């Protein structure tokens, strides 16, 4: 097995420790930021949707602010967003490089992205269901939990899947500006040192990760759609 790998991807095997470290860093970034964006992005999307004029918690100022935040952060290309957030990252995390340094820019990129996906998913819930719940005496927060979030589960799963896939993409870009991870590994060795087997191994690994995330997402969607 070891011999076989050394003959197919000699340069990866030769740099096995760096390779494993890069894998770990990518998993850490996707894991931590994935969780953060779910925990911040879903409430963000819920607020974005429900504070809209005509929504069950309508509130013009809050909606205006959230909507603008979403538009602004979604329109900044990630590589520039990461650069302008270096200062904030240093302030909050104590560093602007490595996995720790990547968390803030990645979170700022994925939360508004997921927020919009959640907004769209909740919009798919029929107004009739909300009216029925109101007629049954549900409070706005009960409607959020028991109607919107519950009934939009397939749409939310789809949104989270798309967000995780873009997050994997963003981590590779973050690698280019000092975040480490597989992106950095591929750029440093595959690209700059022209070692094609490293480039292809990383690509293959990323494709496998994305496919896995997508497959899990699809399974959740299927299971929650009736």
């Amino acid at each position, binding site marked *: 097995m070891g011999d076989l790998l050394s003959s197919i991807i000699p340069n990866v095997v030769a740099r096995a420790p760096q390779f494993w470290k890069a894998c770990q860093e990518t998993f850490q970034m996707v894991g931590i930021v994935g969780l953060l964006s779910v925990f911040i992005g879903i409430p963000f999307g819920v607020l974005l949707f429900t504070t809209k004029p005509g929504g069950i918690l309508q509130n013009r100022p809050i909606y205006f602010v959230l909507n603008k935040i979403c538009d602004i952060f979604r329109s900044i290309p990630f590589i520039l967003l990461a650069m302008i957030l270096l200062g904030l990252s240093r302030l909050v995390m104590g560093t602007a490089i490595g996995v720790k340094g990547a968390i803030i820019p990645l979170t700022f990129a994925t939360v508004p992205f997921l927020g919009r996906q959640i907004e769209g998913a909740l919009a798919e819930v*029929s107004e009739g269901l909300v*009216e029925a719940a109101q*007629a*049954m*005496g549900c409070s706005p927060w009960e409607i959020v939990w028991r109607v919107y979030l*519950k*009934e939009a*589960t397939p749409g939310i799963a789809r949104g989270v899947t798309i967000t995780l896939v873009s997050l994997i993409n963003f981590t590779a870009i973050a690698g280019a500006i000092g975040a480490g991870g597989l992106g950095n590994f591929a750029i440093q060795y595959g690209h700059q040192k022209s070692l094609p087997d490293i480039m292809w191994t990383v690509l293959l690994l990323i494709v496998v990760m994305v496919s896995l995330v997508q497959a899990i997402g699809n399974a959740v969607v299927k299971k*929650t759609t*009736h």
Partner: protein
Amino acid sequence: MNVIKLEHVSKTFGRETDGVHAVRDVTIHIAPGEIFGIIGYSGAGKSTLVRCINLLERPTAGTVTVDGQELTRMPERELRQARKKISMIFQLFNLMPSRTVEQNVAFPLKGSGLSREETRRKVLELLELVGLPDKAEAYPSQLSGGQKQRVAIARALASDPKVLLCDEATSALDPQTTQSILRLIKDINQKTGITVVVITHEMAVVKEICHRVAVMDKGRVVEEGSVFEVFSNPQQPVTRSFIATTSNLGKIEELIAANDPIVAVKPGEIVARLNYGQSNVSEAAISEVSRRFNVDVSIIFSNTEILDGQPLGGLVALISGDKVGEAIGYLSEKNVMVEVLKRG
């Protein structure tokens, strides 16, 4: 003692000056145990009016009192409690697609203090009541329209409401299913004494189950009374046009206008429309005049129904004989409304 009291209720969407006046100064009192119909064409304001009963739409003027509580004065929190005793079913059922039938029916029971077993028992009883005891595990997408409405009725009854509001509850169903759902509502009304408000644009629905009816047009209630009163003696054009939708007696005018051979009259013959407006008349009147005045009555159209236990309707007939005039006079005395449409 009225369970529902709407006093001078108005609802305007938008500004007072150029907004849409969906409901204008409506006062309706509904007694406990009554099935009250509100009929009107689409846009008449009936759906807005029914939403004013549970304050899904807050009236811009007037007061709403249900079961002794003035809802229009309540803060949101109390209003939500009060709504639990005012259930509603909808045209498109509004069942939660991600929940099973059992979970849908149990939806309003959350926070009611019932244990898991008690909830389950109650849900199964309700499913038994609506005739779907074997569908507890099914999802709404696996049910037919009629079955979905039955589940919605079970869900509506779960909180032991005093009032059931039906917003076009049968409008998405075929005529047979409509019948079965109406029978179910009538049954439940008789068994539990629940007060029912039925919003519809279908005359047939009102005839089938309502005790009293209000006719709505352009946001106002233009006519109100027992179903028999209103439909035996309609005062407003909109009421008449509803009656025409279920009666064929109006077709005679078309035949006369087209000079159809069916209505060709010889000298001395007449075509007349007879309407039974009162409960003491029946078809026997025809054979009576026929014997007494020696006239021939040949019926062209006939349309009678039993409304609220009383016959209502009439017929269009060709009457011939020497004493036609006297026969008509006699019928009028018997409270049959006679309209002579054509004379030979």
